[in-house]
């Protein structure tokens, strides 16, 4: 159990997907303008990471390894994640409209997100067991949400701050991202 917790914390903070592994940088800058949309995006990513790593673990364990085709993982994972997200979206639209409105269009955006593919590939590389995969996926998702929320909070303030004209918008966001990355590098070597 302690191993799972340390894996979870390690994925969320020490090996943070955005600031340490540089995965999912597109939503990091694209969806971090408003806190509410950042949290929705983070929740959707966490949810899809959880589902995808469970599904791909089963496929790796019972299809890829017995047939010795582990090198095909990227192709198979993309196929599985894309169709999974489609089904989940369909299910959510038809059964719970409130949930669909909360997730909005983010669910469809995640279909080809590299952070989701990254966590499944990482699970396969490290040959984690099923509980370990789930802990890693949840940790990565929570870390992703955390960084997105912090970034959007900073950017909301930056919007009204008096920054030089040439630095307005994205440039100052890039600098903020590097400072945020510096702060997160302080977690390195904690576990």
């Amino acid at each position, binding site marked *: 159990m302690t191993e799972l917790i340390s894996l979870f914390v390690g994925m969320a903070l020490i090996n943070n997907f955005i600031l340490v592994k540089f995965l999912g940088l597109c939503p990091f800058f694209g969806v971090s303008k408003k806190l509410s949309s950042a949290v929705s995006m983070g929740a959707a990513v966490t949810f899809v990471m959880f589902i995808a790593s469970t599904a791909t673990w089963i496929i790796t364990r019972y299809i890829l390894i017995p047939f010795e085709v582990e090198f095909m993982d990227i192709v*198979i994972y993309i*196929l599985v994640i894309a169709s999974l997200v489609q089904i989940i979206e369909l299910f959510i639209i*038809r059964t*719970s*409209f409130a949930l669909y409105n909360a997730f909005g269009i983010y669910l469809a955006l995640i279909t080809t997100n590299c952070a989701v593919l990254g966590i499944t590939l990482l699970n396969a590389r490290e040959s984690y067991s099923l509980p370990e995969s789930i802990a890693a996926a949840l940790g990565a998702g929570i870390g992703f949400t955390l960084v997105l929320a912090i970034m959007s909070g900073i950017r909301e303030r930056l919007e009204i701050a008096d920054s030089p004209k040439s630095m307005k918008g994205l440039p100052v966001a890039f600098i903020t991202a590097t400072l945020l990355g510096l702060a997160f590098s302080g977690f390195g070597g904690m576990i």
Partner: protein
Amino acid sequence: MNPVIILILTAMGMLSSAIIYLAYVKIPHKVKGIERIEEISGALPGVNCGACGFAGCFGYAQELSKDTKMITEKPCPVALQSSETIRNLEKVLDIKLDASALRKKALLHCCGGNSEIIYNYSGVESCKAAAQLWGGYKKCPYACLGFGDCLKACPYDAISIDKEKNIAVIDFEKCTGCGLCVSECPHNLIELVPAGTKVSFRCSYEPLRDIPGRGKCQYGCIHCRKCFNACEFDAITWNKEEAIPEFNIEKCTLCGKCIEICPQDTLAFFNKTDAEIKSPSAV
């Protein structure tokens, strides 16, 4: 190449598509009215551009399912471009759509003219900021200030600034009638009018305060009713409350008499360029 790879890939692909198909058929429609929304969104263009003001075509279909009549107030500009989409929408929504009446274009109710400059403005280059200071630097309080707030809002490059007159110019061809510029203008000069509008009234004004035409600008309407009297086809009605002419699209024959007789040059053909108007063949 190992045949097992091909086999596994094919099997996985077919399995996924089969599961998605099964999900599409089998998942129950528990949310009330969801079938209707799916049906409507199927008839929409499906490009998710957001020009209607909702989050994608699905969001638009959601609103349409509540009230089909709102399509005339907030029509989908993309659907109006193609007659086939309009027909599909008519069938699904069970209403009649008059596309040519719905298609809108932006019209600027100011022709710049030579409104006197009352002070030298050297602040932020924005109409909204300039309008805060005595309603702008031009003598006419309803003048276009020409800093291009509308230009920044336009996603289609349809607006440019005429440097000479210092006003915005809207390109009829490029304008899609999305209406994003309307709320940008601090003087409320831009109005969405039907695309079939023939004569544009290029002056904005509030009758209760003062008359912009007199002493403020060479081109402003002076409410002389000459255009109303000149029209032989009953296409112009006189709005007594606001003391401005109103144009009937169907009755107007584009004869150009009202434009000719206007002493102030307030009127102009709507969807023609200046060059076309000057050449007599266009009239």
